[in-house]
């Protein structure tokens, strides 16, 4: 997949999302949780962009803000050149079929009182696509394309295992033939032997329908497998973005280096020889991030300026962006 040659499908510029912290009876705002603090990236048509980071770094919020499921605090998201924030509610609704989401927990994201058939056909009904027997046919065809039996339309979510429920969630996401899907930790709740099944399915669907993915995950090994390019997030900001091969072979940001060295490898011989960068301390609270570089409090290489100035987000090689004073 040559991402550079493809047109930009989604452009994110300076995207920011702050959740207010209020106090007292009058709900006076006393601060803000800076969940996403000015992130920018492009997603090219047909590629998979991986977004990695630890819990609380803002990666899921970023996904939701991009789809306008939360109102934005600042910044701009354009989909195929159209600014999503300038759209009216109705116009945005008309755009929705092109952008879908697959959620982490298939237990919580499927209504337990709806049959599988009605879960998958709901987006079709909502957007007035297909009628009567045609719609039924479409639902059955969708079930088949995610590797499930056509006969399952009248069953309920609880009758299925986690992996199968995630397949139902995927069938719902592709029902309206979207171009762009945000996969928010789609395999985190699944068993190891099932994860590969779901990832293979997502790759097959991408090939078949030419889908573009934003794949949000904390699993660095899986991101390496599925993503063409990877963005690493830390405390609301993207610290490094480049193609998957470069990121894993020559990471430049000290956080990316530490993160990669912390991932356990399933090979005991290799594991004993590895040099680890063990970070000290915990991730600071996004309500009160450190001044300067957000990573400065844990960075093994931090200098004076790291504690004072925010590093600039700059391109140091074609397609390789980093935010660090020391690179």
């Amino acid at each position, binding site marked *: 997949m040559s991402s550079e040659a493809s047109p930009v499908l989604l452009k994110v510029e300076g995207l920011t999302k702050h959740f207010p912290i209020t106090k007292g009876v009058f709900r006076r705002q006393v601060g803000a949780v800076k969940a996403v603090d000015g992130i920018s990236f492009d997603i090219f048509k047909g590629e998979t962009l991986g977004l990695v980071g630890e819990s609380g770094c803002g990666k899921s919020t970023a996904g939701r803000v991009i789809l306008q499921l939360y109102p934005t605090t600042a910044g701009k998201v354009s989909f195929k050149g159209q600014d999503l924030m300038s759209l009216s509610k109705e116009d945005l609704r008309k755009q929705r079929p092109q952008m879908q989401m697959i959620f982490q927990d298939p237990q919580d994201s499927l209504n337990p009182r709806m049959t599988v058939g009605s879960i998958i056909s709901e987006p079709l009904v909502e957007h007035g696509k297909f009628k009567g027997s045609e719609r039924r046919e479409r639902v059955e065809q969708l079930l088949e394309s995610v590797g499930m039996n056509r006969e399952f339309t009248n069953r309920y979510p609880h009758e299925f295992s986690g992996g199968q429920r995630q397949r139902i969630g995927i069938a719902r996401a592709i029902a309206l033939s979207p171009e762009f899907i945000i996969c928010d930790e789609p395999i985190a709740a699944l068993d*190891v032997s099932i994860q*590969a099944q779901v990832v293979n399915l997502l790759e097959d669907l991408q090939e078949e329908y030419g889908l573009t993915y934003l794949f949000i995950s904390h699993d660095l090994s899986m991101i390496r497998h599925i993503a063409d390019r990877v963005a690493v997030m830390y405390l609301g900001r993207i610290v490094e973005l480049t193609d998957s091969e470069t990121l894993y072979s020559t990471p430049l940001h000290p956080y990316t280096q530490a*993160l990669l060295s912390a991932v356990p490898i399933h090979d*005991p011989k290799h594991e004993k020889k590895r040099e*680890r960068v063990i970070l000290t301390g915990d991730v600071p609270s996004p309500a009160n991030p450190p001044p300067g570089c957000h990573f400065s409090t844990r960075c093994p290489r931090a200098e004076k300026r790291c504690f004072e100035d925010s590093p600039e987000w700059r391109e140091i090689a074609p397609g390789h962006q980093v935010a660090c004073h020391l690179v």
Partner: protein
Amino acid sequence: MYAVNGISFDLKKGELLGIVGESGSGKSVTMMSLLKLLPMPPAEIVSGTAKFEDQDLLQLDTKQLRKIRSGKIGFIFQDPMTSLNPVLTIGYQLAEPMREHLGLSRRKARKRSAELLEQVGIPMAESRLGDYPHQFSGGMRQRVMIAIALACDPKVLIADEPTTALDVTIQAQILDIVKQLRKDLGMAIIWITHDLGVVAGIADRVAVMYGGFIVEEAPVDELYANPKHPYTQGLLKTLPNLEGERAERLESISGQPPDLRQKPQSCPFAPRCSNVLERCLQENPSIVNRGINHKVACWWNPDSGEKE
């Protein structure tokens, strides 16, 4: 539910045994039943023995068990938030087992609590004894749990998915501490996890569980270099690599994990196995030695040369 079915293993002094399996494979239930931590009824231990220093744990009464639990055998659970009491200070929760099991005075217990916290890498340990669990982050809470488990100098530490709820950089910190503590204190550890990567880094020996059975057991290097059970082989192949070549497509194990409500008659992995034989559907294989210290429960044996 047939959660755990006739499994046997031993743990040598100072050894770290990794128990690997997916959810529902019975790995936690095994450990909980060792110390009778499951509510009984409905749970029931049908048969078996569990010898600890020549004492059968399953025959002990509640009072005797109490002495062993957290005295000689320490326990760390997956979620430190639900296993710490939110309304008691960390200092109290640390001191309690020492006063109970070791008969330490309040002052001595407090002193040792501070030492323990320091040992697991909590800064300004003494001043944090008066804090409550919610004032600690997830990684710090798990350190507190480890400190509590270590309080009475246990001979055995049972850790049930202790790093699963944590981020990788915090997990690396905890693994580092555990390795260091093992070196310093020389206790035996049973480490239960679903993460083959974590086990590769810390275990001496690994047992793989599936559907309530141990299907393979071997020293760690041997298991990863030369897996013999089709489930272990499949599991290692499904994992994407962090380094080296990137697979075009992940290998996957088809099908779903077994339903534990059915009494297992055949090999539990047979429906998903690519090497399934006629015999696998009729008889459950027992675990046998195949190679030095390498035990496998499988009818399929390509090394033997003879057809089963």
